[in-house]
């Protein structure tokens, strides 16, 4: 009986807090995506031929945990098969957040583009815990003029 009550409490907490966290996260993701939309992130390996760019590897990563409710529902879906919808939003959030973090780095270094973007996902929790890490990385293209400014700034920072 006690176990059952604990289970219901966990499930309820997972549902309520999980949904709240997800809603909040999506709101922030959509907002930041609009803010950073001017910086193109391109999957192509071939950078623009015109212009002269300094290249730099940049990355953004995020770890997102599943909640009790999501994990439980996913466990049930495992029996019957089908879309594991509870994890779809988890991974979607992970990917978008990782790209946003990568874009944030690109903005910091005044990049014009990020090329050859790649995504990697790793499950980092085992057993009954569910958490994923999503890593987004790519090549930032910084116009030479901006790149030299940036180098100057870095040198000034070192000297100071």
């Amino acid at each position: 009986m006690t176990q059952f009550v604990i289970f219901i409490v966990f499930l309820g907490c997972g549902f309520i807090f999980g949904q709240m966290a997800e809603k909040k996260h999506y709101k922030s993701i959509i907002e930041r995506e609009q803010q950073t939309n001017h910086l193109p992130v391109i999957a192509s390996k071939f950078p623009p031929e015109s212009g002269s760019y300094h290249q730099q590897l940049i990355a953004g990563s995020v770890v997102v945990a599943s909640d009790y409710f999501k994990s439980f529902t996913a466990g049930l879906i495992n029996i019957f098969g089908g879309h594991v919808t509870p994890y779809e939003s988890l991974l979607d959030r992970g990917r978008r957040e990782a790209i946003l973090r990568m874009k944030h780095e690109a903005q910091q270094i005044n990049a014009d583009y990020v090329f050859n973007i790649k995504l990697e996902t790793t499950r980092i929790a085992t057993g009954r815990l569910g958490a994923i890490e999503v890593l987004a990385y790519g090549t930032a293209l910084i116009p030479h003029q901006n790149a030299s400014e940036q180098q100057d700034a870095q040198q000034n920072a070192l000297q100071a």
Partner: protein
Amino acid sequence: MRYENRQSPEGINVTKVNPFAQFLKLLAMAAIFVVLLVIVLQFFGGALAKRIPFKYEVQLMDNLDISLSEVEPSAEIVLYLNELAARLASEIPLSEDKQVYVHYNDESVFNAFATIGGNLLFYRGLLEKMPSENALAMVMAHEIAHINHRDPISGLGGGVASMIALSMVTGDTGFAGSLLTQAGTVTVTQFTRGMETAADTAALGAVYRLYGHVNGASSLFEIMGDVQSDNKSVPDWLERFAATHPLSNDRVEAVANTAQRNGWSTEGELTPLPDAFLDWLNIN
């Protein structure tokens, strides 16, 4: 060349579902699936196991070499229990291809059970509480009836089949798995309770034929009912649904009903336990 990122429409990578409705639907489907699976396996597993000849059951138990008690077979308590068992076995009546042997265990456990190979085990904790031979005869006849119905091997067959299937279904499903295993276990108990009720009915008949009345037959259930209601943590309806045995109070009632239906007298002189009974129990 111009490069741009168009905002993709929101939600294309996430299926729109109501998570709570999805959860309830899945849970109901899984519960039905597990219950059906266990019912089928209990039924066929149990029925197949009953077809194993009794002598193989005895051999199996011998090969397992499980020691049920450390008491010498010549101890007075063992002799007494086996003599009572023999009298009841002829009243049940136990079919000819089967035999029972009663073991005594000097532990304070309040229990007795029948297991494969016609072995019965009685614990000191239970025997100490016996108010009369009639009460002991009812418990003993109940366990012999289990042997006669092949319940231990049938329960083992059905139980093993169900548990293997359940662990295959729920193997990697985490939390959901442990909940569904519970559902399976509760389903199994629906079978065992049926066995218990059948054993009670058969036992009551044997007690009537041995003593000429059924007075005292349910006194142990009354004691058990009192013990259980003293430390009760779950409501009656839940226990009725989830327990392996019928509720003690229900059993008292069932005994009275069976006696009335068959016209068996509930009045009669109780046969006392032998004078030295309590001394026999204290082996060490």
